[in-house]
């Protein structure tokens, strides 16, 4: 018993244990979202989706995962075996590394570093390399197309995304995600989308720009996780399945997991930037570390739901239109907002 206590007090063991918290969360969340996406999609389309395994098919995600684990792991003969096997893990690592700085609750954050949001942006850019690797190693023209599109898309949409983040950073004056959240504490009126915790005049002036920045970040985050209407890298009607066409079994599951993890990640960032992170909408009521984890996950899941909802509503953009949206619509608006916010914050 004593050894165990000693072991737990060892900072290295502790940090290893802490590092496993997000993966447990991701696995559970992925199962829920897998089920949720199918159900939301089905009900939008007047269908029922899973109904057979368990009550309303609740056990189906487990069955799906089991199936993927059992499946034969096919590596095409002409593929580059090493890079082909490496790519999905690289993609997942890129996503997973970003979870280190997410403040899940007032009592838990993997690493409370000052550059939190910048680190998050940097870590998610690792994903691009993994995607390029998978497309090239598959030795399939459609896959290569998909991964090149994906990389171009992620790199372009990072610009408006980061500019939107910059706007928020200018308002809050910090890049530490925990501090960002704490600054929005104290009820729904202090969330940045409603102007933040400022004097009334400043608050009212901030609201429209915050709203525009929120939309900009939401759109660019959707592009970064390759969701409809920006799902060109895996556009099934054009590129079959894009960069993960040749993947099967466990490797495909990892891609899938990374995609879902990324989806939550960007939703969480939206929540932290504009919707007060883990703060309760009722001020101190329903606060505390446990409740705050609840609020954080609930808010995150709401934006995951919005993503899913949009996915089953909208058609897909074309490559040039995708670039048009990024460079000619989102980026100018974001720059305009930044200038305006600068004025507001200085005056």
């Amino acid at each position, binding site marked *: 018993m004593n050894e165990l206590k000693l072991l737990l007090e060892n900072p290295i063991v502790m940090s290893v244990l802490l590092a496993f918290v997000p993966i447990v969360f991701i696995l559970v969340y992925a199962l829920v979202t897998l089920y949720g996406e199918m159900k939301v999609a089905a009900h939008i389309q007047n269908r029922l989706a899973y109904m057979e395994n368990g009550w309303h098919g609740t056990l189906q995600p487990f069955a799906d995962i089991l199936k993927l684990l059992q499946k034969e792991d096919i590596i095409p003969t002409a593929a580059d075996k090493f890079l082909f096997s490496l790519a999905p893990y690289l993609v997942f690592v890129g996503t997973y590394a970003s979870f280190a700085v997410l403040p899940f609750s007032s009592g838990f954050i993997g690493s409370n570093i000052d*550059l939190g949001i*910048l680190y998050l942006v940097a870590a998610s*850019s*690792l994903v691009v*390399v993994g995607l390029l690797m998978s497309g090239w190693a598959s*030795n399939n023209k459609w896959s290569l197309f998909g991964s*090149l599109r994906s990389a171009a898309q992620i790199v372009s949409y990072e610009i408006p995304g980061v500019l939107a983040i910059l706007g928020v950073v200018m308002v809050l004056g910090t890049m530490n995600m925990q501090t960002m959240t704490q600054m929005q504490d104290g009820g729904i009126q202090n969330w940045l989308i409603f102007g933040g915790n400022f004097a009334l005049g400043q608050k009212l002036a901030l609201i429209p720009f915050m709203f525009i920045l929120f939309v900009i970040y939401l759109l660019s985050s959707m592009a970064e996780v390759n969701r409809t209407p920006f799902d060109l890298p895996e556009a099934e009607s054009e590129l079959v399945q894009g960069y993960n066409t040749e993947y099967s079994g466990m490797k495909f599951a990892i891609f899938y997991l990374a995609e879902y993890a990324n989806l939550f990640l960007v939703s969480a960032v939206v929540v932290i930037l504009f919707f007060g992170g883990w703060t309760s909408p009722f001020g101190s009521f329903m606060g505390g570390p446990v409740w705050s984890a609840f609020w954080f996950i609930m808010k995150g899941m709401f934006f995951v739901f919005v993503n899913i909802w949009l996915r089953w509503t909208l058609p897909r953009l074309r490559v040039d239109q995708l670039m048009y949206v990024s460079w000619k619509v989102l980026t100018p608006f974001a720059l305009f907002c930044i200038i305006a916010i600068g004025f507001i914050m200085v005056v």
Partner: protein
Amino acid sequence: MYEIIFYFFAAVTIGSAGVVVFSRNIVYSAFALFFTFFGVAGIYVLLNADFLAVTQLLIYVGGILVLILFGVMLTTNTVSVDIKAKSLNTLPAVSVVAALAGLLAGMIWTTDWFMSKNMSEITAQTTSKEIGSALITTHLLPFEVASVVLLVAIVGAAMMARRESVKTQISNSK
């Protein structure tokens, strides 16, 4: 413990840099460059240069490496895997590298390095504030000059990219 992590990152950096240089497959070289950048970022973290580490990842991995990969993938035959890089001009290369190595070695020797007696003495502290204030006070001029140069580069790139299509439109309208 910190030593182990340091040697790990150092090994990753040097090993992957070796792959970059010696690999016959240019795509492998490009991908190995990723691990080199990653290892360097890790070392920056160990040196408490967190802003630098993050920027390293953001700019080198997210920007420059992707650009290199794009270049490699779009210019070489993508269908077959055997993309070979040839060794050319061995003698000039060796001499240039030797000169560079000498320069670096001289620099390392002459610099008065700050050495801490105890690694754990170094407490985690952020550098972003210092960098930020340094950039807009003492180093304002180089910072502004760099941004002007970058702006010129962007405008120039836009001009060069645009010229062709303008020409095409003119020829189309004729």
